[in-house]
């Protein structure tokens, strides 16, 4: 056993037993952060804060919420909103945080993409981050259902129905997930369990993993510069703070984080107190009614882009129904970001502004996802259907083009562009009914999906961009 001397203070007593000094060094005082990073890198701390707010407000909501189809709606809209002191505050904080957390996640994600923070040693950071995105989505969806309003109900109906698209076991799987033939009490109680226990546990575990993955490759910086963290840290500790390229997480870097966080919190509480309704759909203030559908169903804003990819295909192609194609595209859209480090064939870590073709690709992706988001909310009737198709195919095409763009295979890139344009024309002819599910569209789609899946394998890495 180790040797223990008599401690002179409570802190010393604890330090001897828990190595508090060492822990603090590892976690904060000697956790090195590059100097040249901007406010976008503060999003991690903002997210952590939002998650904490969700957890705490959730605990207070949990004290009065009743997971029973007969009681749920009133427990939220009457008990929590009218009776419980400050119940409205917790609810609005919870709802607004659930919505803006996605805004911040998207900013966080796209910062990572813009600065190429997902490659060369940082793949695990990216993957664990994407896992967090997926688990947060499951958490948000299961929570959305709990107030048992009309939109909650039909969202649950539609989303669980999606599993029916899986060949052979689909229909049984839907019943199994719901615990009944339709979305009903067992569905509510199991989603309640997922929302308040299982998903939060998993999320917390993955947050731990996400932090851990940062430890070795360290956080990226605005120039994609490779920093020798040990050497720079020595400089800093020797007092050469100006010359050193790094600063400690605490207190230097966090002070900047806190500033960004402060600005963000003003925005957040402004929403909570003055615009909480942006996070609440008016239709959800009608109690759920399984026998009446609202005329237009759409998810929360942060799922709209993938929802529109699902809906984007409006015609059947031979044996593939429009819905199957939508499901395939939707499946791809939901996992493709995981593979970003391998679709990007360029090893160089640099901001998109310095990466030529990639810069165009990045902004096209952002624009396409905004278009998908906007059209995801509009009813897909008339010309909207065609725009949805263009944006959905565009989303897939961008991913199919990425290996060609980053490995600078111009020939392949042109091929992707031509196939995409041909699909647009074919889609337009189908839209105006000039073409009837023809052989042409089938073969185009075959080429398209082959391109998509083989592309990253076929294209060889060309190393640096210069």
């Amino acid at each position, binding site marked *: 056993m180790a040797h223990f001397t008599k401690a002179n203070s409570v802190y010393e007593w604890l330090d001897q037993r828990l190595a508090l000094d060492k822990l603090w060094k590892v976690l904060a005082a000697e956790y090195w952060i590059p100097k040249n990073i901007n406010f976008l890198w503060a999003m991690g701390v903002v997210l952590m804060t939002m998650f904490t707010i969700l957890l705490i407000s959730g605990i207070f909501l949990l004290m009065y919420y009743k997971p029973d189809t007969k009681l749920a709606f009133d427990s939220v809209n009457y008990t929590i909103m009218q009776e419980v002191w400050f119940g409205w505050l917790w609810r609005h904080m919870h709802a607004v945080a659930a919505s803006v957390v996605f805004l911040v996640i998207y900013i966080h994600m796209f910062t990572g993409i813009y600065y190429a923070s997902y490659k060369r040693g940082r793949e695990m950071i990216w993957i664990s981050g994407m896992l967090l995105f997926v688990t947060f989505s499951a958490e948000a969806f299961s929570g959305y259902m709990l107030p048992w309003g009309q939109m909650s109900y039909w969202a649950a109906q539609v989303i669980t129905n999606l599993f029916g698209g899986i060949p052979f076991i689909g229909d049984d799987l839907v019943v*199994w997930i*719901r615990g009944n033939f339709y979305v009903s009490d067992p569905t509510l109680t199991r989603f309640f369990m997922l929302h308040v226990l299982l998903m939060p546990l998993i999320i917390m575990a993955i947050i731990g993993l996400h932090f851990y993955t940062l430890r070795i490759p360290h956080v990226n910086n605005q120039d994609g510069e490779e920093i020798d963290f040990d050497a720079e840290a020595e400089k800093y500790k020797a007092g050469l703070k100006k010359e050193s390229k790094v600063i400690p997480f605490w207190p230097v870097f966090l002070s900047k984080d806190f500033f960004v966080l402060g600005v963000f919190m003003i925005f957040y509480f402004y929403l909570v107190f003055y615009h909480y309704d942006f996070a609440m759909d008016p239709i959800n203030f009608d109690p759920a009614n399984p*026998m009446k559908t609202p005329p237009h169903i759409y998810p929360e804003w942060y799922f709209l882009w993938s929802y529109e990819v699902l809906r984007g295909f409006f015609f059947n192609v031979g044996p593939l129904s*429009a819905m199957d194609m939508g499901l395939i595209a939707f499946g791809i859209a939901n996992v493709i970001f995981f593979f970003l480090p391998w679709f990007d064939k360029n090893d160089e870590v640099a901001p998109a502004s310095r990466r030529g073709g990639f810069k165009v690709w990045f902004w096209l992706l952002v624009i396409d996802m905004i278009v998908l988001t906007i059209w995801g909310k509009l009813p897909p009737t008339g010309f909207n259907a065609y725009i949805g198709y263009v944006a959905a195919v565009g989303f897939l095409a961008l991913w199919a083009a990425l290996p060609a763009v980053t490995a600078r295979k111009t020939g392949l890139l042109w091929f992707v562009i031509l196939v995409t344009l041909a699909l647009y024309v074919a889609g337009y002819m189908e839209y105006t009914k000039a073409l009837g599910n023809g052989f042409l569209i089938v073969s185009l789609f075959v080429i398209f999906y082959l391109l998509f899946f083989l592309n990253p394998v076929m294209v060889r890495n060309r190393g640096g961009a210069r």
Partner: protein
Amino acid sequence: MSMANSRRDFLGMVFGGFAGAGGLAALYAMKRTWDPLPSVMAAGFTTVDLSPMKAGELRTVTWRGKPIFILKKPPEENCNHIPDETKKRLVKVGDSEYLVMIGLCTHLGCIPSWEPDKKTFHCACHGGEYDACGVNTFGPPPRPMDIPPFKIEGTKLVLGEEGPEYKKMVGKA
């Protein structure tokens, strides 16, 4: 040495096998816990008396929490514009014909509304349309509205049980 090793391997394998079997049993228990309860499964029957229905009338009943459309056909109307596909969707009870189907859009599961003057079902969600026989004629729905399992007992319709008429209709017999 090798003796000791093989003994350790053996113990390892026994322990692994034991733990694996326990894990599988636990997984099975979890799967079953998540399954619909027996009471839920047993509540899956609904009986409707068809005799008071008038020709051309649409009735909506609930079966397994889903709306079921029952439409009594007027004699002149015959669903035969796409003959093979639709004719077999009609159920003969006594001397009238009925359409029985699950009133959920096959696209994403909204409830289409019946428009008697146009004789179509219209799904407001994404503009899907079905003809008077429940066959999709426009928009995203991939197939006609589904037929629920049913049985005919005199003038009564029992939903949830697969009678001979149903089996013939879906080609199971």
